[in-house]
């Protein structure tokens, strides 16, 4: 039966739209109709992660399935988390290197304090 090596090659699920939809017993065409699409094509593309829904449609999915967008689209969340955290670190590094006086110095100090506060919330 399974061994740890078998578990290590598990990839990620881009979204849980199909899971929620079939649990409800709804068809793609029905969800398409609820969201104002003429056909089921866009819903199918969202489920297969061939296209990302617009913000309005993402929120519509949240309302429909009563599940936060970040839980419906864990793949997108993970991607964006990686990108934003990396860029934040970069920005923080740049600010720490900067030299400034007066108002500008106070503004940088404010930003650095916010960075540290944000890190504390994460921990």
């Amino acid at each position: 039966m399974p061994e740890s090596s078998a578990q290590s090659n598990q990839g990620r699920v881009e979204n849980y739209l199909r899971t929620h939809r079939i649990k409800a017993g709804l068809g793609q065409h029905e969800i398409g109709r609820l969201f104002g699409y003429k056909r089921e094509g866009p819903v199918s593309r969202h489920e297969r992660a061939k296209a990302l829904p617009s913000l309005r449609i993402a929120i519509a999915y949240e309302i429909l399935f009563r599940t936060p967008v970040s839980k419906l689209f864990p793949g997108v969340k993970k991607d964006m988390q990686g990108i934003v955290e990396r860029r934040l670190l970069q920005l923080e590094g740049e600010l720490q290197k900067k030299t400034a006086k007066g108002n500008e110095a106070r503004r940088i100090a404010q930003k650095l304090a916010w960075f540290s506060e944000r890190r504390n919330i994460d921990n």
Partner: protein
Amino acid sequence: MPTLTRQRVLTLDFRARMFGYVVFEGPRTLLDWGVRTYVSGERLILEARVSNLRSMFAPSVILVRKPAEAYQLRQPMIRPALHSLTIFAKRLLITMRIIDHSTLRRYFSMDLEVKKYDIARMVADRFPELSWRLPSERKIWESEPTRQSIFDAASLGVFYFALEFEERPIVTQASG
């Protein structure tokens, strides 16, 4: 590395020209289920169907329920299809296990003479989202409904996780 409670497993009930499938995320969550058709002898179509499920759910293990010997004799195309699926899984570095139908039957039946329908009922009790697809008990003169294949695939997942967590699901005989 995913823990066993979040391990994603794709279970397939393999038949000639179609297969029932269920995707598990741990022992209590189902991500997807259904029936897919393929053309006997068309290896690429079968691979495309399984590949589609793999790209959507990225399972770490594929479990295949091997049909009875008599069924394999009646449907000679099933052996090459199973073989090509094994090669396909190997190519993608996915662990694939083939479990004999009699192993499953023995596991669920214990001392009782349980039918496929009894096992399907146990699966539907465990996963209420499947209950509306539970077929009625088959009469001897009726052919098996296609959706029975979903329950056969699901029972494979129940068996797999039960062995992992060392719990035995209780299957009771249908009354009447």
